């Protein structure tokens, strides 16, 4: 394979280029000012299958609202609306 230029990597299938969707903070965009800890369905969007809080890089929320989300989730867990640990909860 003398002809192979160095550093030229050929993939079996073309690498899928992730279309860069810019994330936005839904609380800023829709002007939501308060996150209610009493309705668990809304909070399910911010926790993963095991019931853990999703990081900001995945949900795209701003720091200020991530803290409010974290506090709301912890309160919901305290009054047993959301489990502390769960398996395939969604």
């Amino acid at each position, binding site marked *: 394979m003398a002809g192979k230029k160095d550093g030229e990597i050929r993939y079996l299938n073309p690498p899928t280029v992730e279309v860069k969707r810019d994330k936005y903070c839904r609380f800023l965009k829709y002007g939501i000012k*308060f996150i209610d800890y009493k309705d668990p369905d809304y909070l399910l969007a911010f926790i993963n299958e095991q019931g853990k809080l999703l990081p900001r890089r995945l949900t795209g929320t701003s720091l200020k609202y991530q803290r409010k989300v974290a506090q709301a989730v912890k309160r919901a867990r305290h009054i*047993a609306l959301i*489990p502390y640990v769960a398996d395939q909860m969604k």
Partner: protein
Amino acid sequence: MNQYEAVFILTPVLSEAQMKEAVKDYEKFIKADGGKVVSKEDWGLRKLAYPIQKKSNGFYNLFEFQANPSLIAELELKFKRDERVIRFLTVKMDKFHITYAETRRTRLKNPKPAKA
């Protein structure tokens, strides 16, 4: 007089009458000290996300009330001592929370016509 919101869970072992009596008991306690109960909500028997004191469901109640701060310590003490209550959470309401609670109440009273 700040505005507070208290959610508490009563054990499912209680009969309907005992449950109502417990709720009335706390309402009287808040009123006795000059507080004002803005709204009362009874979510009824609900399944808990994890068992509390070996029980897997409980009567949920929500109180929204105005009281002076000194009352809160006594209220929480009362919650802690009362063995009918298995879990409670009192939260101070800021202005966003208050506006949210009002819109939530109007939404609950006359739910929006379901989008056809």
